[in-house]
């Protein structure tokens, strides 16, 4: 990762004594890191986790197809939640910025509630309560409704910060041209808001992807659930969970790098 100016200031050319200390530090940390890696491999080895029986099935195409199907499930849920949150977040933001006081109160309460409640609690709610009332909901919606509810509340605040970041002169200029409040918002404020908030919207997708793992609870076929099936089939726990964890990390890493790139490109400062 590129160093900032502040960090770079720490690393100006150092004298012979400091250089020696850095050398010693480097040596010690390399040895420590190697020792750590060796210890991990040794753990795998003495517990027999390096045996081919735990790994061979990764050469089978259908195992990867099944993992891929899990990933598709994860992506489907994430895109569904993301799309709903994009719109519901906007609606909640309008509510919170409304001129009508009761609407404002309602939207504020809703946002605080959805943001402050664990998604997992909400998923248990969707899992247990509708069936008590005799309603049937598919596992997809059991995951997507809570995940998107949380994301909507967060995005409402992101949008709000974006609207506030549009310079006031822009709004005044629009109104002085005779735009109505709605037109002003539609043609002047909203386009600029969207440009400002795009990186934050993308970054929030990481949270959505993470939340889809709660599909594990309701056995919606996403990555975690499919991993469990593979584990049951091949009796290999550590390698499968390891691979799945790495997939999640890579996917989310890619998303956050993309968000960083977007915000870097715009070089817009946020204070959310």
């Amino acid at each position, binding site marked *: 990762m590129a160093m900032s*100016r*502040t960090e770079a200031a720490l690393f100006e050319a150092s004298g012979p004594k400091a250089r020696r200390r850095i050398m010693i530090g480097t040596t010690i940390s390399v040895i420590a890191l190697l020792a750590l890696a060796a210890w991990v491999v040794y753990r795998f080895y003495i517990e027999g986790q390096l045996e081919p029986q735990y790994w061979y099935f990764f050469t089978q195409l259908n195992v990867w197809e099944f993992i891929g199907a899990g990933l598709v499930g994860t992506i489907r849920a994430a895109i569904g939640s993301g799309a709903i949150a994009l719109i519901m977040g906007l609606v909640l933001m309008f509510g919170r910025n409304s001129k009508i006081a009761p609407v404002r109160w309602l939207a504020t309460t809703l946002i605080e509630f959805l943001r402050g409640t664990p998604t997992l609690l909400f998923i248990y709610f969707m899992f247990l309560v509708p069936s008590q009332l005799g309603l049937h909901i598919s596992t997809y919606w059991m995951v997507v409704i809570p995940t998107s509810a949380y994301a909507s509340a967060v995005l409402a605040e992101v949008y709000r910060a974006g609207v506030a970041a549009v310079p006031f002169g822009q709004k005044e200029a629009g109104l002085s041209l005779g735009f109505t409040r709605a037109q002003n918002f539609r043609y002047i404020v909203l386009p600029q808001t969207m440009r400002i908030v795009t990186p934050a919207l993308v970054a929030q997708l990481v949270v959505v992807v993470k*939340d889809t793992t709660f599909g594990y609870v309701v056995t919606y076929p996403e990555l975690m659930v499919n991993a469990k099936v593979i584990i049951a089939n091949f009796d290999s726990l550590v390698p499968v969970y390891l691979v799945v964890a790495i997939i999640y990390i890579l996917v989310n890493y890619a998303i956050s790098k993309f968000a960083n790139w977007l915000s870097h490109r715009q070089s817009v400062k946020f204070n959310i």
Partner: protein
Amino acid sequence: MKQLISDYGWQFIASYGVSLRISCIAFVLGLLLGTVLTIGRISPIPPLREAINVYVETFRNIPVLALLVFIVYALPDLGLVIDYEPCVIISLILVSSAFTCDNLRTGINTIDAEQIQAARALGLNFSTIVMSIILPQALTAVIQPMVTLFISVVISSSTGSLVPLAHEELTGLVTEINNKEAMGVVTFLVASILYVLTGLIIAFIGRRLERRYATWR
């Protein structure tokens, strides 16, 4: 409602206490670990910096559930058996320390490079610069994001409901009550209110702290 209070009132309070305990331990240890790692991350030792970068990207991007499942079910196969509650706390520490690192990095970047150049000109060494110039300013600059992090640690402590804890935390209790008897909406609402209020209180304390240090700066 009355039945809920008489039957489960105390359990609700106890479970809420467990949730708070898990969250507070995880947040405080995560803050400490994150601070130590941040020092390593800005140290002049390249392999250490790289290793910590990998650590941060790993635990920032892994879902808490996937991490918890790994610690609970995969580590015993590697000969590491840990009790359920420490498992939950460890997974939250790993994640919150990674986010602490990330926040502190932003905090450090708010400090003018000139301050560090001045300190170096005065002949201060790395550890003095870090302890008396960088950390105090970086920590006060990140109060707001750390408050947000604390709230999400409280929220994430609900993943404790996925493993059989000795004393259930709030989300686990609610599911247990609902599995035994259908008291649906009310139990969820009570738990939800507890979580939301906790978040609001933490946010309130955070704003107070921030105002105090804002005047100090």
